[in-house]
C-alpha cells in the first residue's frame, strides 16, 4: 500500500526473531557465529532438497492436488530435520542454547529467503491486501514451529527420554508434514487465508506446548536471561 505498510509488515515479521535472539538468552552466550553457520547450513539443505525434488518430481507444474505425490514431496522435508540435527551437534554448550540457536537460525534463514522478497515487491504497491500481514504472521508461527521442531529432535537424541520416544517421533512427523496437513485442510474444508493462519497457530502452539512439557518433565530448565 505504502512504504509505511511495508515497514509494518517487516516489523511484524522480524521483531519476534530479534526479541527471541536478544531476550531468550542467546545474546549472552556469544553464539552469533554458530547462528550464522546454521543459516548457511539452511541454504545448503534447501539446495539439496531442490535437487532431489527436481530429480524425482520433474512435473512440478501439475496443478491437480494429489495427496500421495504431495506426501512424497514433503517427505523431502526430512532434510530439514537432519539439517537441524547437524546444526545442533555443531553447537557446544548448554542444551537450551543448542535447540534455540538451531531453531532461530533455521527460521530466520527461511524468513530472509522466502518472506522478504514477496514483502518487498508486494507490500509497497498502491493496492492494499491483507496477504502481506498474513505472510508476516505466518513467519512468526514458523519461528515457533522450528524452535519446537529443534526441541523435539534434541529430546529424541537424549538418552533419558526413551519412554516418550513414540510421542516424540509422532510429533516430529506432525511437524514435518504440517504443510501437507494445511493443504488437505484447504482442499477439503476450504479454509480461508485467515482461518488457515489461525489453525497453523493453534497447531504449532499445541506441538510447542507438548514439547516443552516433555522437556520440563525430563528435567530441563529455562535460561535466565540477564536483560
Amino acid at each position, binding site marked *: *500500500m*505504502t512504504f*509505511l*505498510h511495508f*515497514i*509494518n509488515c517487516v*516489523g*511484524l515479521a522480524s*521483531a*519476534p526473531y530479534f*526479541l*527471541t535472539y536478544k*531476550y*531468550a538468552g542467546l545474546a549472552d552466550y556469544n553464539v552469533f557465529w554458530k547462528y550464522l553457520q546454521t543459516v548457511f547450513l539452511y541454504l545448503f539443505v534447501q539446495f539439496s532438497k531442490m535437487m532431489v525434488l527436481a530429480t524425482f518430481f520433474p512435473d512440478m507444474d501439475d496443478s491437480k492436488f494429489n495427496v500421495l505425490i504431495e506426501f512424497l514431496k514433503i517427505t523431502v522435508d526430512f532434510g530439514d530435520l537432519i539439517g537441524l540435527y547437524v546444526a545442533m551437534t555443531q553447537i557446544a554448550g548448554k542444551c537450551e542454547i543448542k535447540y534455540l540457536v538451531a531453531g532461530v537460525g533455521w527460521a530466520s534463514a527461511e524468513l530472509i529467503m522466502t518472506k522478504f522478497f514477496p514483502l518487498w515487491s508486494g507490500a509497497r*504497491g*498502491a*493496492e*492494499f*491486501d*491483507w*496477504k502481506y*500481514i498474513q505472510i508476516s504472521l505466518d513467519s*512468526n508461527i514458523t519461528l515457533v514451529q522450528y524452535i519446537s521442531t529443534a526441541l523435539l529432535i534434541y529430546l529424541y537424541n537424549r538418552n533419558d527420554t526413551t519412554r516418550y520416544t513414540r510421542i516424540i517421533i509422532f510429533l516430529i512427523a506432525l511437524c514435518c508434514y504440517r504443510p501437507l496437513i494445511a493443504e488437505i485442510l484447504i482442499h477439503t*474444508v*476450504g*479454509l*480461508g*487465508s*485467515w*482461518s488457515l493462519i*489461525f*489453525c497453523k497457530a*493453534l497447531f504449532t502452539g499445541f506441538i510447542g*506446548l507438548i514439547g*516443552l*512439557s516433555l522437556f*520440563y518433565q525430563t528435567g530441563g530448565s*529455562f535460561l*535466565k*536471561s540477564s*536483560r
Partner: protein
Amino acid sequence: MLGDLRKQMFLIIGSILVFIGYHGRIVNASEEFQVYRMQQYDLPFGTHFGSRSNQISMEARTINSKPSFISRRCVLIKLDDFTLERYRILTSQYAGSIIVILPANYTESQRQTIKSLEAHLLHESVKIPVYFILESARINEYYDYIDNDKSSQDSSAFQVLVDSIISDGFQFVINSPNIKQLTQSDFQAVNLQGKLIGGDQSDPNKAKRIPTIIITAHYDAFGLATSMSNGCDSNGSGVVALLELSRLLSSLYSNSKTIPPLNILFLLTAEGKFNYYGLKKWLEEQSEAGEAVGKIDLDDIQFAICLDSLGKSTQISDDVEDGGIFMHVSRPPKEGQASFEFLKTLETVANKANVRFELNHKKINLASDVLAWEHERFSLSKIPAMTLSHFQSHKDSDRNTMTDKIDNIDRKVLMRNIKLIYQSLIQYIYKNDDVTNYMVNSDLDISGDFVSSWMEKICFQPRTASLINKNHPLINLFFAHFNRYMQESLRQLVKIQAKEPEFVLYNEEEATLVIYNVKPAAFDFFLAMMVSSYVGLIYLAITNFDKLFGFLNRKLSSSKLKSN
C-alpha cells in the same frame, strides 16, 4: 474442569467458524476489467463530440453517494439508473469520470434509455472519460460494496472516524496511452467494388455501351460506445442483402443464355455514418479525368440502389405494424426514366407478395451539413438514385445505436426484403413474368444459410469506422466474396484530407480498468499501533517465559490429574 475444557473447545471451534466465514468478502488487492470508451469524433469547423479524455485514476463512488462526494471521483452507475438528467447532474457536479454498467441483454426500456442517451451524448462533448463495462458478478459485487460504504453517506462523527481508519476504498485506474487523432496512415478505410458484366461478351465495343446499375451499401456502424456498436440492422443487413444479391445475380451472368444486356456494379462503401464519406470519395474518383483501374463512366449509370437497413420491420402507426419497404428518393422518378420503371416493378412485386411499399420523397436539404440518405450523394452528382430501407425516417434513433445487436434482426423479414429486391431486379432486367417466375422458383433462390452465416459474421464484431481498416478480417472476407462472384473486383483506399478533414476519429476505443483495494492513510498508523502492541506482548512473553510456562504446565498437569 472437564466441562471447562469442553467449553474452551467450543469456543475455539466457534472462532474458527467465524474466521472461515470472514473470507467471503472482497479480498483481492487488484482486479482487471475490460471497458469500452464512449465514441469520440470531430466534425469540421472545430465541433467536438463525445468523451474527450480517457485516463482515470480516482476513487470510486456510486450514483447513490451524496453529491458532494462525487466531485473528482469515478462514478459507477447502472444502466437502469442512468438517465440524461442524472448525467447532466453528474457532469455539473464535477464527477471525475463515469463508468456505466451495461447488462448483457437489454430490455425494451433499457434500449429506449440507450437510444435517448445516444441522441444527446453523441452530439455534444464532455471533458471527462465515459466508459462502459459489461455487467458481471464481480463488478456487481464492487458496486454493492461501494454503494454500502458509509463514508460516502450521512453518518455520525464516530462512524466517520471509524470508517476513516478501516474502510475499504477502491481506486479505479485506467492507464492507457493518450488519445491520438487517427490520420490516413493509421487507418485506411476502403471501398470495395465488383462488377457483373452483361451484354455480348464477344463484342467488347458493344458491351461498353450497355447501361449500368449500381447496388451499394455502407458497411460501418455507429453507436454510443465505439467497440460495442455492431450495427447489425444498420447497416449489416444492407451488406448481407448486397452480398446475397450479388451471389444470386452472378449465376445469371455466368450463363450465356441468361446474360442480360445490363452491367451491375456492386459497391460496399466505408464511413457511411460520416455523411457517406466513402461514397463521396468514390464518386469524386469516377468523375476525375484520366484512366484508372475499375473506373466507370458516370453517364452510363441508369440508376443506383442504396441498401440501408433491411433487417426488420418498422412499426409506423398503431394500425400498421409492418411498415414494409420504403423507397426514399430526393426527386420523384418521372415516367420514361429507368428508375421509374424499377419503382413500378418493385411496387408490383411488393403488392403481389402483400408487402407494404411506400415511396418517400424528401428533397435534399442543401442548408444542412448532414445528408439524410446515401442516395443523396448520387443525386448531388445528378445520378438517379434511391435508398431502400425499412425505416420511414432517416432520423430514426435505431439507425445509430449500440443496441443494434443480432437479436435486433428479424431473419424472416430480412429474407423477404432481399427476395423482393431480387425478384424486382429480375423482373426489371428481363421484363418478362414467365422468366421471373421460372427464376424465382428454380434453385436460384435466396439461401437462408448464406444470409444467416453472413449476418453472424458481420454482427460478431464492432464495425465503427475507426475500427475497420483495409486489413480488417471482415474486409478480407468481403473481398474474397467479391473475387469469387464478380469481375474486376478491387478495393479502393478512401483518402482523407490532411488539412481540414471532413471528420476526425480517435483511437483508444477499449481499455483495461484496474480496480485497486486501498486503505485510508490513517489505517497505516492504526496498523503500526497494532503491530507494536503485538510485539510488546511477545517481548513480555519471552522475558517472562519461565513464569508463563510454569503456570501453564501446572494447569495442564492438574487437569490431567483430575481427569484421571
